[in-house]
């Protein structure tokens, strides 16, 4: 393994979006055969930097060299120049749903091309099957990509990029949709390829992953590098977090506002969450408690939450309330880009869309004054930072977008909040603000249901953890528990 020769060199890269300076003269170097983690808060410029590297978005100025390709960025598109030097796996899989797994894997791949651009289906299927076996993925090579679950889709995207045989790979939040087992497989492959001389640029919000796979860490803040090429061994979580934040941060601890005698707000009886569920689920939410639904991807925890929120119809069973009428429920969907906000509309419209009925008069016309007051109040409560309440939400940072989604869910003064992946793709600062918000709501007597894949998050928030596996509740943790308890219970060993 030769570690001394840089394969990627970026010098003085700048990129401006409108009035936002996303990159302010960044230098970035990657050596051959290293896993180089890029960490920083949302909006620090990580994704922009790697996009500039892969040519997905073009840098405005600066010099770039990848392998033997060298050029000056001028804002013009240069992706075609470096096509064979670099592969970029984006945060969200971009697969062709109507093509098969094999076709997705080998699209535009010279390996299966014959004369005149004819594709060899036989060799494509054989190669795809071999790849799937190698990665332990149990799907047919001729299945449609649209049928696959999120984790498999993400893996396919990664395999596709890896099989192109490029010397540099960018993995942008590759594990967000992966289960622990899938993560293991991915990390094994990354290590194997690294030893074969492939370089990785690895972006992750999970510092434990960074410590596990990365050799070198570069930390970004506000479009600049604040720590370049630091060996991972010399860093610890505290140091990284401080550099990311630019100030000392304290991880907040959970608060307990639960009361055994508090009335039940929402009660599920005999639920079958999906057609694979084999047992009935009984579940309740009380005033003032934060309940977390935990479990592996595809366990049915999201289905359960969606049913509680009234967003999905259960296979059987029902959700009731002891008070007779169902309480008002605020809903934060799992993927804010897909179903959280309307990007081209402003903050005001996005928030008030959650409560149009209470904001409008008898003829249905929206009371402008009332709307402005409520939106301003909710934006303050959730700490939305925007240039004005009319700014399109697509222009906000991930954390602020998520706060807008929370503000929307609070529009009708709900009794219960159901939040799925409440801080997915959100930076540390915004995360803590959202945690504080949820605790505050619980202290005011709301029932809070959180679905999360992050143990840290659950431990910081939940007074009660319900572990869902295979469509049924398998375990529960109440009151005082440590993160170690949580992990052991989730792995089913406690």
């Amino acid at each position: 393994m030769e570690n001394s020769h840089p394969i990627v060199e970026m010098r003085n890269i700048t990129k401006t979006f409108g009035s936002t300076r996303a990159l302010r003269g960044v230098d970035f170097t990657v050596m051959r055969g290293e896993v180089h983690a890029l960490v920083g808060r949302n909006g620090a410029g990580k994704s922009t930097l790697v996009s500039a590297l892969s040519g997905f978005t073009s840098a405005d100025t600066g010099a770039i060299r990848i392998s033997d390709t060298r050029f000056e960025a001028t804002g013009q598109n240069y992706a075609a120049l470096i096509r064979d030097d670099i592969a970029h796996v984006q945060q969200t899989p971009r697969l062709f749903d109507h093509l098969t797994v094999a076709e997705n894997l080998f699209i535009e791949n010279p390996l299966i091309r014959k004369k005149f651009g004819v594709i060899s289906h036989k060799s494509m299927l054989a190669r795809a099957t071999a790849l799937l076996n190698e990665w332990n993925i149990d799907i047919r090579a001729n299945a449609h990509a649209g049928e696959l679950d999120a984790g498999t889709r993400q893996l396919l995207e990664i395999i596709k990029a890896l099989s192109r045989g490029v010397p540099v790979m960018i993995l942008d939040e590759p594990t967000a949709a992966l289960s622990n087992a899938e993560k293991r497989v991915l990390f094994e492959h990354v290590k194997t390829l690294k030893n074969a001389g492939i370089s990785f640029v690895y972006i992750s919000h999970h510092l434990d992953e960074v410590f596990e796979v990365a050799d070198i860490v570069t930390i970004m803040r506000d479009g600049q590098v604040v720590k370049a090429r630091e060996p991972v061994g010399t860093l610890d979580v505290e140091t990284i977090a401080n550099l990311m934040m630019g100030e000392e941060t304290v991880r907040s601890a959970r608060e307990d506002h639960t009361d055994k005698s508090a009335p039940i707000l929402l009660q599920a009886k005999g639920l079958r969450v999906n057609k694979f569920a084999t047992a009935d689920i009984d579940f309740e939410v009380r005033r003032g408690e934060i309940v977390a639904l935990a479990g592996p991807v595809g366990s049915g925890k999201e289905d359960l939450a969606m049913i509680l929120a009234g967003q999905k119809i259960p296979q059987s069973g029902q959700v009731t309330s002891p008070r007779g009428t169902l309480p008002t429920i605020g809903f934060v969907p799992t993927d804010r880009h897909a179903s959280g906000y309307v990007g081209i509309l402003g903050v005001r419209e996005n928030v008030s869309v959650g409560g149009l009925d209470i904001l409008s008069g008898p003829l249905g016309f929206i009371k402008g004054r009332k709307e402005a007051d409520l939106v301003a109040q909710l934006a303050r409560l959730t700490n939305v930072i925007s240039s004005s309440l009319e700014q399109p939400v697509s222009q906000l940072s991930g954390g602020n977008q998520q706060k807008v989604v929370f503000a929307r869910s609070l529009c009708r003064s709900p009794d219960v909040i159901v939040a799925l992946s409440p801080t997915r793709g959100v930076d540390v600062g915004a995360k803590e603000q959202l945690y504080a918000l949820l605790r505050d709501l619980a202290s005011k007597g709301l029932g809070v249901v959180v679905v999360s894949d992050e143990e840290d998050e659950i431990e910081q928030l939940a007074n009660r953890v319900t572990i869902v596996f295979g469509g049924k509740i398998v375990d529960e943790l109440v009151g005082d528990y440590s993160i170690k308890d949580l992990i052991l219970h989730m792995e089913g060993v406690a």
Partner: protein
Amino acid sequence: MSVQADTTSNSNAQDTGPSKLSAFGSAFVAQGFTMFPVLLLLIIVGAFVAPAFLTSRNLINILEQVSVLGLTTIGLTFVVLIGRLDLSLEGVVGFAPMLAAVMLVPAAAGGYGVELPGWMALFVALGAAGLIGLFNGFMVVKVGLNPFISTLGLLVLLRGGVLIISNGRSIYSPGEALTYLGSAKILGLPVAVIVFVVVATIVGLVFQFHRYGRALYAVGGNEEAARAAGINVDRVIWSAFFFAALLSGLAGVLLTGRLDSAVTTQGQGIIFSAFAAAVIGGVSLGGGKGTIIGVVSGVLLIGVINNLLTLAQVPSFYVQASTGAVIIIAAVLTTVASQRSSGVKTRT
């Protein structure tokens, strides 16, 4: 609330606040005023090119002519705002008044001999239009057809339907009940223009200030988000098709009134102009974006151009081609303006 309330205050969105001028520009474009300077320019040019252009008679004439296209385009905007389209509106413009006509006039004049009383005229025309809209909504919401194909089919069907119910003959002078709206004048102002202005005002207010309008924008901008926010998305889609057809039926009645006859070819080609007017007016074919102010500017632009080319005695072959060219140029202009001002990319 939290000790870190200000930790994201330096987040991307607002390193530098927008200047007053650019804020004005953004609002100008967002409200749909982009095309008005162009319109003004055209009017000034028109005044020089053709002396007859800037007379009140000609201006009223333009307004009267665009009222049919205007109502159809406003109808179309309902559907386009939710990210769908409706080609059958063109069929409705022809079919609805023809159905009313054959129900009204005696058998000798080409009717069915039903000879419904006059007050039923509007009821029949708009009722038929509304039912057609509900059918479109049903096909899209319940059956799950792509509206392009379902409304294309219906367009062809309605064109044939007009020939069937009229036996292939146009019906002349179908009666004042049907022609009043399109032909009468109040204080020198055609009723058609008043209808157009009233409808545009009401719909404009609904789009901007009514919860239904807000729901249209939300569904068009991100259907899943609208659903998660508690909007009854199916009902919004269904109703958009309903209102689109209803307004097109009204447009058809105005046209029949202006021509004093229900013509078998009535309305043919109007859907293309309606799409053009909507896009020129800044309505995004991707959904979620567009205002009635913009739509009105698009409709007026097409009306003024047609009028000017005619007044300037441009040979009729050239009129059509140059209208097309102007449509493309105007669409480029609005798209560029809206991308520049909002920074949000939309499909036009």
